[in-house]
């Protein structure tokens, strides 16, 4: 009779334990999917480095339009820019790596501890007081508790990362944006002036009407290429701006990263970022 009562007590004990674990698990698991998504699209956007190549090669492209006397200067300029290429690519790479690790810390996928947990369950069964049914419940409970504990630890790391990294992150993304918008943008304008000057001079010196028409068509083609680059530069400027703004919002909301207002805002930034990235890919 006493044995029957003990078994009955244990059944209720196991059920209560499961309920307790589910409650703990539910309280512990934060919804960070919006942050994970924002990090993923930021990482993908930051990996776009085509504009760096366009900037470095611009002096060589301009040799087509400029007189031979200027070519040594353009060659020297190309060498100076080639020396900057690695530093520029490293900036893109770092933003990408940072966003990758931010996404990993925010990831909701379970860190799998099944092997260890099952081993613990078996050990508990062998060593003490659990029967087969209790072992399964025990392993399930432990898994949930472990998940909650790991989630709590991960959330703390994520908040600490955002807090510590925000200031340098803003500087790095903002400075890259300045390089893209003012540097690459100014360069595109220089190239436009060079194309315009070259073809305008050819037309002014020519008497051949058919030749003039053909040359003007080529001018349009070349200028269209510069316009496409202009569009890409503007779009990438927007990409970097949205990445910086999104991270700033994370910084401001780091006290409760699963707050619904923060999640909604981050979803908005991710959406705007996707739009800017699509414009960028369409342009070049």
């Amino acid at each position: 009779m006493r044995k029957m009562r003990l078994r009955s007590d244990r059944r209720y004990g196991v059920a209560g334990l499961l309920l307790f674990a589910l409650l703990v698990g539910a309280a512990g698991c934060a919804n960070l999917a919006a942050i994970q998504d924002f990090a993923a699209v930021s990482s993908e956007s930051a990996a776009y480095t085509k504009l760096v190549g366009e900037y470095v090669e611009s002096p060589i492209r301009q040799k087509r339009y400029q007189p031979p006397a200027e070519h040594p200067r353009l060659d020297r300029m190309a060498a100076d820019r080639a020396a900057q290429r690695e530093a520029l690519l490293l900036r893109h790479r770092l933003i990408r790596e940072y966003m990758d690790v931010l996404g990993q810390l925010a990831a909701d996928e379970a860190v799998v501890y099944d092997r260890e947990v099952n081993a613990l369950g078996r050990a508990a069964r062998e060593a003490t007081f659990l029967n087969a049914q209790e072992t399964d419940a025990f392993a399930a409970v432990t898994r949930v508790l472990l998940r909650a504990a790991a989630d709590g630890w991960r959330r703390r790391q994520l908040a600490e990362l955002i807090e510590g990294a925000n200031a340098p992150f803003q500087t790095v993304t903002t400075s890259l944006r300045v390089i893209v918008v003012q540097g690459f943008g100014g360069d595109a304008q220089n190239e436009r002036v060079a194309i315009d000057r070259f073809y305008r001079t050819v037309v002014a010196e020519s008497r051949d009407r058919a030749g003039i028409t053909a040359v003007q068509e080529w001018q349009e083609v070349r200028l269209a290429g510069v316009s496409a680059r202009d569009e890409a530069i503007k779009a990438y400027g927007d990409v970097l701006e949205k990445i910086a703004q999104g991270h700033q919002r994370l910084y401001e909301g780091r006290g409760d990263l699963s707050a619904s207002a923060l999640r909604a805002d981050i979803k908005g930034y991710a959406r705007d970022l996707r739009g800017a990235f699509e414009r960028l890919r369409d342009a070049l």
Partner: protein
Amino acid sequence: MKVSSADAFELSKWFRELSVTLGNYRYENWAKLKKSERDAIESAEWSLLNSASDMTTIAVGLVLDESEASFEKLKAATRKAKGAVKRLKTVRKVVDMATAAVGLAAAVLAKDVGAIGKNAKSLFEAATVDV
């Protein structure tokens, strides 16, 4: 005199505008200018335009220099965070947390209130203390 990146970008823009202004003058006065005069002005235009591009290169270099300290700080933060992700998966941490979780589970099963409190504390410590 030390030039900032903002100054350098401004100078680049100024050189380009000068180049364009000269070019406009050459085209507007094409018929009035001798070929040698047009060639001399054109040469100055290209020189100014390339000065604009040179200043862009200098400005980009200055921005990279000005943000270098922040770049290194962000690199360090990223490295530390990568370590945190790695630690999340370390067996030792898992064992620590699992051991504490097992203790808690057993205490709840046995309805041992004292042991529940003690093991919950152990689980919390295992979850929050760095390896």
